[in-house]
């Protein structure tokens, strides 16, 4: 065991993947010689060569479309799109081709590939660099969508994604790359895609989140605990498939739910979770479900970021609202 940051854990997963399966390729802008804009792929080209860790032209649609062709022909490409906002030029490839080749060929052709997308705000980046568009991918049938919030999960989920027979959009919370450290085992291990993680058990209110917002959610749970409120904290971590069973069981127990995400509220994935709770747990609810989310605004630039991102205070206040109902 080594204590690793999420950045190192993802690098480790890629290393283990490249080592284990010669069909695995890393491709993307600047992933080779410089090791990626976040240094996630640092050292991998040196170790595995230019044919397996490939610096591509600046062409997101091309990266995803070429990776698609590579995958159909038997390779296991892991494509990196530098920022979520830069994944939009590749929508046509992801939505029209990657997500549906299995269905349009009735299993004859498949695209087992991973699209890694650093995402989310809180680092004072330039415009287009702080987006949280995970719901768009989750809304696209045929894709799996995962979001780790810990180094252990990041490595285990990425290896599960590499091994997965279907395309996986792997959202990496930029703010967590170096903000959390954890014991990470060496070698290959997988965290199953499709399972939420109950990070903390509690009986009063269920706090649900994923990605970087797990930081604030954990702090909010600490704050509530000081008040004597026992929160159950769930890291959703897999949006598709979504682990409804774990969420339903928790909310049936606590009767209260607060959903936290940094993506805009309207049609965010929190709405899907709230609907699932309404469908399955309505008669267990002690209070209306609350969402603490980013606003329906363009992600603000550095000086106003704090207005946008859900804060510990907002999460605690929402929990209070559910407790007072």
């Amino acid at each position, binding site marked *: 065991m080594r204590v690793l940051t999420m950045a190192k854990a993802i690098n480790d997963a890629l290393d283990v993947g490249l080592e284990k399966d010669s069909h695995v390729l890393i491709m993307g802008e600047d992933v080779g010689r410089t090791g990626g804009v976040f240094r996630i792929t640092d050292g991998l080209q040196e170790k595995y060569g230019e044919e397996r860790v490939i610096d*591509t*032209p600046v062409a997101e*649609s*091309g990266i995803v479309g*070429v990776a698609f062709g*590579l995958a159909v*022909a038997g390779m296991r490409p892991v494509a990196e799109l530098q920022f979520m906002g830069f994944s939009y030029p590749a929508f046509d490839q992801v939505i029209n081709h990657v997500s549906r080749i299995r269905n*349009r060929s*009735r299993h004859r052709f498949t695209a087992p590939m991973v699209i890694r997308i650093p995402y989310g705000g809180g680092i004072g980046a330039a415009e287009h660099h702080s987006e949280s568009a995970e719901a768009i991918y989750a809304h696209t049938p045929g894709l799996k969508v995962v979001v780790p919030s810990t180094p252990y999960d990041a490595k285990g989920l990425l290896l599960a994604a590499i091994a997965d027979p279907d395309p996986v959009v792997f959202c990496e919370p930029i703010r967590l790359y170096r903000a959390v450290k954890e014991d990470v085992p060496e070698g290959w291990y997988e965290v199953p895609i499709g399972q939420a993680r109950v990070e903390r058990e509690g009986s009063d209110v269920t706090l649900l989140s994923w990605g970087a917002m797990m930081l604030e959610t954990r702090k909010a749970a600490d704050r509530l605990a000081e008040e004597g409120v026992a929160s159950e904290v769930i890291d959703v971590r897999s949006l598709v498939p979504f682990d409804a069973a774990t969420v339903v069981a928790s909310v049936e127990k606590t009767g209260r739910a607060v959903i936290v995400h940094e993506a805009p509220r309207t049609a965010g994935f929190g709405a899907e979770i709230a609907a699932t709770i309404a469908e399955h747990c309505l008669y267990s609810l002690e209070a209306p479900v609350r969402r603490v989310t980013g606003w329906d605004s363009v992600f603000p630039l550095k000086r106003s970021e704090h207005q946008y991102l859900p804060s510990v205070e907002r999460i605690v206040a929402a929990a209070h609202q559910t407790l007072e109902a």
Partner: protein
Amino acid sequence: MRQRLTPSGGLQGEAPIDLQLTRRLYRAMVFARTYDRKGMALQKQGRLATYAPFEGQEAAQIGAAAALDPNDWVVATYRDAALMWAQGYPWELLFAGRTGDERGGSPPEHVPVLPPSITVGGHMVHAVGLAWAEKLQGTSRIALTSFGDGATSEGDFHEAMNFAAVFEVPCVFLCQNNGWAISLPRERQTKSATIADKAVAYGMPGVQVDGNDLFAVYEVVKEAADRARSGGGPTLVEAVTYRRGPHTTSDDPSRYRDQAEVEEWARRDPLERVRIYLAENGAWDAEWQAAIEAEAQAEIDRAIELAERMPPLGPGEILDAMFETPPPHLEAQRRELVEGLQ
């Protein structure tokens, strides 16, 4: 523009293929035309969904496929049935796709042809990936992608050409420049004098060829395929041809183009010039023509019968090919769907 057979059947230079293969490819073009005309008729009888005819483009498609190895990847469009069939895709599955059935997109295991691309342009990049994978895996397979003149305006044309050239992947880009992208003429599609010219910008060879000339198309695509196979990287082939029919059965070309133009191109028919060539070389007679037409009709009739006899997907089967293993939410939706149908 490379030409080997003039519209009147005159041979320019040497024939790239012998008479036996020429007869086989002529027969294939007759099959293709029979399929295409049947497709138009079936659509007007309400038996196929929208149909996009390729009449007039038979030489470009059959000639290109003939230059490939049976293992080579083909990534083509909704107007490329002849090309796909020549590479092994069964007629009945091509029909099945047009009747509105996903199983039409599922060719047999040994057929290296992706289901036809419906969106314009995105599929060219896939061919680059497929070709690259073969290169990385050390096989001798290449990929050919077919697209129209309209697709060259798409961003993915640029990304595909650029990737292919930078990584020297064994890919042939076959543009069937048929003059029209629905209602937009080739002159309004690009300011380039030719589409083949665009290859220069990517650092790859670009060749313009008479797309209604079976010999010239075969020869040019063969050169491109050989170059790709021997490590020479990609080539752009512009096959100049003409869309004699409407864009699809829902289109009315009289709104935007002169009938005179269509008639002019009918005189450059890709089948007729091969027929004359064969006849002049004692390799064609009316009896053989009647025989292959009857054969083609029988095969196409059998194909539509097979396609129409296929029962539609059963209740809930639309959810069965989203993932290798359906996750719980899809299983739940499948139950809901099936119950709702009962």
